[in-house]
């Protein structure tokens, strides 16, 4: 099963089991079924509960919050994760705030699905990884799908919590097969631990396998599913006694995943380094984009550098 099918199956199951659930987003109805085909078949099966919307990302999220607050859970698809900036006010000042601000008198069961990431040549406004701007928002849980877990199960988990969730999906990953946790390199007494999430996991795993084969450096990959609130204790236990840790993310450097990893690991590891995307917009040129985003070679080189430090 591919990642896109896993998410699509979960959406079907949730719609079947929850008769009040609404799915809304741009271009999501059949025959198109969404820009990345994640909602394929849903509008045919649940015609009155799958709503294709105008191009109004902010108000779509606001409308979903209103539906959810008054008893109709909602799942919103943002066509490209980049467009989430248009919905920032609705997420930060409305959906994520309502429950606490209203003294727990209400709940807001909404899920926002956002396809993020580059490596498709879409250029500066369709290739970003903007999730860090929504991490640390009280009342919002941010999750990142990857193919070494169960993407559909992640959606079910988010739905069951009945609170605002942002799920980051990677647009390259949609067509990848679901591999499961067993496929993650997890050598005992690893020389290096790579902490990463989302679309970078695939590249980290390839780098770890090459490091084991070519350099005899035992490298473990920890694929983080929950970005915010940051699961520091869990990451600490997964790093264990390993003294070298590298954090890999595709978004711009600083104030992000690596910073949170470093905070969780203060005083616990000897060597820490970080890899991120560029500190300028993502170029359209495919080759240039590949040079800039952390790929297998860059991760491998960074790990060797970390290993040679001691």
């Amino acid at each position, binding site marked *: 099963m591919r990642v896109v099918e896993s998410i699509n199956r979960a959406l079907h199951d949730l719609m079947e089991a929850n008769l009040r659930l609404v799915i809304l987003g741009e271009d999501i109805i059949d025959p198109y079924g969404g820009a990345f085909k994640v909602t394929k078949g849903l509008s045919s099966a649940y015609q009155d509960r799958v709503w294709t919307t105008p191009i109004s990302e902010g108000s779509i999220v606001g409308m979903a919050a*209103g539906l959810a607050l008054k008893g109709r859970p*909602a799942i919103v698809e943002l066509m490209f994760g980049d467009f989430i900036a248009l919905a920032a006010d609705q997420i930060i000042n409305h959906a994520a705030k309502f429950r606490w601000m209203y003294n727990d008198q*209400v709940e807001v069961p909404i899920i926002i699905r956002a396809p993020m990431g580059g490596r498709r040549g879409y250029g500066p406004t369709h290739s970003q990884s903007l999730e860090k701007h929504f991490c640390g928002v009280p009342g919002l849980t941010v999750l990142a799908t990857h193919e070494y877990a169960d993407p559909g199960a992640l959606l079910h988990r988010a739905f069951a919590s009945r609170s605002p969730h942002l799920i980051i999906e990677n647009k390259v990953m949609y067509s990848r097969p679901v591999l499961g946790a067993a496929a993650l390199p997890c050598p005992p007494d690893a020389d290096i631990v790579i902490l990463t999430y989302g679309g970078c996991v695939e590249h980290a795993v390839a780098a770890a396998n090459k490091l084991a084969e070519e350099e005899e450096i035992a490298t473990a990959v920890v694929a983080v599913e929950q970005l915010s609130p940051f699961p520091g204790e869990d990451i600490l236990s997964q790093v264990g006694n390993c003294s070298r840790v590298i954090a890999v993310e595709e978004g711009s450097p600083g104030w992000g995943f690596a910073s949170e990893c470093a905070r969780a690991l203060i005083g616990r590891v000897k060597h820490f380094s970080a890899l991120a995307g560029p500190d300028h917009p993502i170029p359209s040129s495919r080759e240039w984009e590949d040079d800039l985003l952390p790929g297998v070679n860059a991760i491998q080189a960074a790990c060797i550098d970390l290993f040679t430090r001691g």
Partner: protein
Amino acid sequence: MNEHAVRKDRDVPASSFGELRIVTSSALQNLTLPQASNTLLGFELPIEVRLYQQMMLIRLVEERLLDLFSQGLLFGTTHTSIGQEANAVGVVNALDRDRDIIWSNHRCHGHFIAYSGEVEGLFAEIMGRVTGICGGRGGSQHLCFRNFHSNGIQGGIAPVAVGSALARKDEGAVAVVFLGDGTMGEGAVYESLNLAAIFGAPVLFVIEDNEIAQTTPKNLTVSGSIVARAEPFGIRTFAYDGNDPVEICELAQEAVSYVRAESRPCWLYLRTERIGPHSKGDDTRPALRLEQARARDPIPPMRRRVANFEEIDDFCRSVVDRAVESAAAAAMARG
């Protein structure tokens, strides 16, 4: 505008307000109520008297808030609706409190009191007490009580109101969202008009035009016509300029009936005046303009129509006194 109708030829029957829930407040205990009235919001009273009592309650609550601020007993900020009470009572009394939903803005006390009668809960909330309507978490502009909600972000409540209306459409509920002339600058309002029309959301957009956004007059912030703004979306429009609570209530009833029956949005424009400051002591309008605003105060004309207004005033004053006393006695919210 395709409607500018205020009917004066019919009474509003009490039964048309639906099954009104009697709101109890501890502020009511041991109080002598005016004759023929036994609820804080005066549900049993003739419409004119009821609306006057509610307006007076709002006026006295907000005057007391400004008084408490000037005494240094409140913190943060507060936005009073002094002068705009006729809109609050007119619109809210046209609703079915059991099922309809209200979304209000930073200037929400009047709408809140008219809906809930929770005077003590409001004072306690603004005073940061554990007995506040949101336990001291929300304060003046973030209130929640049953189907009443407010938030302090301009225009952001509009799409949320559309969603809430769609959620409860099957139950015949209507959602009302209060906006102002200043909010006409927010894009979310226009996205919401489009969404409401496309999805057939039973939403009543109420625009309280007081001709000033904080300190900036309308001619510097609003182009074109506020009244005409919703029509291009295929949204029926009602407009009113008069500050008479009974007329506003009648018009709102007509609008609400349309929204409920047709499951369509509606745009209700109400020209009003803000007599007080935006928040506290920040009124920069010239004296003449303020005088014009005060000339449209909705309370004095109602006193000529409500014979026992002094009795009602005394009652409302004692409700406010008790509520403040009781709120002040509660513990500060500390989490």
